[in-house]
């Protein structure tokens, strides 16, 4: 189970401003949404991203989710091949359009996941992500709740695992019985996890109030002082090129290898 994705390092990706990395990630989401028929462009982008991961020593973060890549690819290809609209028969039950959509959906998912893991999550600490969101205009309170939850989630996963181990040691067997019986056996697992978490609410709200959370502050100061450098501007420019290029490629259907059945 993956609990932490950040990898310590001093590569150029680690040193970039979190705002730049958020923009880069979002810019890579654009081709993953728009380039449905340009399979070879997607492959090139994925390979470039993986090369970036290799030179910044972030490949372990991709290795952690290799099973996800496999499942996403299989699900996409099988679902589209069986259920997708079809026109041109290639062989047996394989049609060109659904197969193309399946491969494209798999590649687009791999591109988006790789982008978020390599550019953002593997090379950016949680507090930097939150600070980046605030600087990009996300309201402070929302960003605070998000970063607090992000920090607490791995701790709570530990709590949930302890609850599971404790209940199993008392004889709870979630693997036997009918479907509904098995499902109902999760109540003794969910209930303690829920109450153990919610019991912390008062302490947590008192802690944030004691740090001046309730006061209407015009401008908040932050321990992290974010400043864009020349390298950041270069990567933001590259991100804009990726976005504009994807929109143009999609609009004119350049380099398409199959036709969308619309």
């Amino acid at each position: 189970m993956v609990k932490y994705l950040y990898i310590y390092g001093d590569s150029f990706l680690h040193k970039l401003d979190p705002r730049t990395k958020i923009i880069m990630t979002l810019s890579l989401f654009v081709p993953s949404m728009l380039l449905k028929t340009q399979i070879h462009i997607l492959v090139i982008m994925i390979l470039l991203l993986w090369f970036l991961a290799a030179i910044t020593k972030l490949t372990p973060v991709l290795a952690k989710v290799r099973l996800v890549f496999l499942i996403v690819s299989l699900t996409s290809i099988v679902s589209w091949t069986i259920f997708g609209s079809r026109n041109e028969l290639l062989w047996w039950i394989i049609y060109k359009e659904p197969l193309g959509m399946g491969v494209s959906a798999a590649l687009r998912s791999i591109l988006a996941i790789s982008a978020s893991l390599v550019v953002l999550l593997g090379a950016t600490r949680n507090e930097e992500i939150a600070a980046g969101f605030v600087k990009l205009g996300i309201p402070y309170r929302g960003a605070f709740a998000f970063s607090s939850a992000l920090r607490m989630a791995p701790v709570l996963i530990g709590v949930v695992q302890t609850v599971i181990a404790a209940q199993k040691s008392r004889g709870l067997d979630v693997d036997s019985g009918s479907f509904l019986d098995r499902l109902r056996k999760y109540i003794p697992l969910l209930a303690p996890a829920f109450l153990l978490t919610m019991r912390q609410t008062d302490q947590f709200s008192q802690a944030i109030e004691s740090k001046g959370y309730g006061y209407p502050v015009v401008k908040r100061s932050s321990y992290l002082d974010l400043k864009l450098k020349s390298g950041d501007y270069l990567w933001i420019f590259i991100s804009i090129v990726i976005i504009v290029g994807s929109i143009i490629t999609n609009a004119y259907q350049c380099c398409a290898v199959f036709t969308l059945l619309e």
Partner: protein
Amino acid sequence: MKEVFTMWKYPKMVSLVALAAALYAAVLIPFKSFQIMPGIDIRIGTALVPALGIFFGPAGAWGAAIGNLIGDFFGTVGIGSIFGFLGNFFFAYAAYKIWYSGKDNFPITNTPAKVGKYMVSSLFGTLSLIAILCFGLSAIVASLPYKVLPPILIFTNGIPPLVLGAPLISLFAKRLDKWNLTFNNIMEPGDFTLKKKTNLLGLVFVLVGALLSIAAGLYMGHVRGVDVGVKLLASSGPPLLLYFIGLALMGIDAEEFRKIQSKEEDAE
């Protein structure tokens, strides 16, 4: 829908957002392995989502949305995560709106009528999730054909809250009320859109909007053979507007707050 924004001024509500999100993410990740068939697993964590909405109102909805995003952060974040965020937000928010749109709203499931009310709230929440997620994943992102998703989502995200939600609410209700952690113990009536005469109309709009969106997507896929593109967008998108109008037409009963306040006065 103003409570979605006014809640952020209460530190306790912000704490509930963070804790609900962390809990949802923490439950989603270890319980991902309950398989009903190879490759398709039941998301046990979704059992918590309607309960989060019913107990914590808007904080529960934000918590479910952020929690799902954080769950995605542990390996599967992508463009679809945006729709996962929105879908889970309205999964909890619709359950909260439906639960509090009528009378006798104390969040407990100790009578058959209350269990029935919970089932209806949970079903509305699930429908919201399916309509929004299928629209996003198929019509916009084109990750999977539309016709594949609704049947899978009914199993993976619809069954756990129906089976587990009512017992969980029954277990937690009195304790959370005693700890003053339900949203109507924390927020003021003025923070909400209060009950209107349009509640029933809103309910109908929500139901019809979500069902029409799903039906249109399924029709386009099964009958017209359209799995992606503008036609799918144009058929399953507009009914969602009806759904959102429906939610906006619904308000919460001010009596709920009066009961809480009189309870506090009695305690004093």
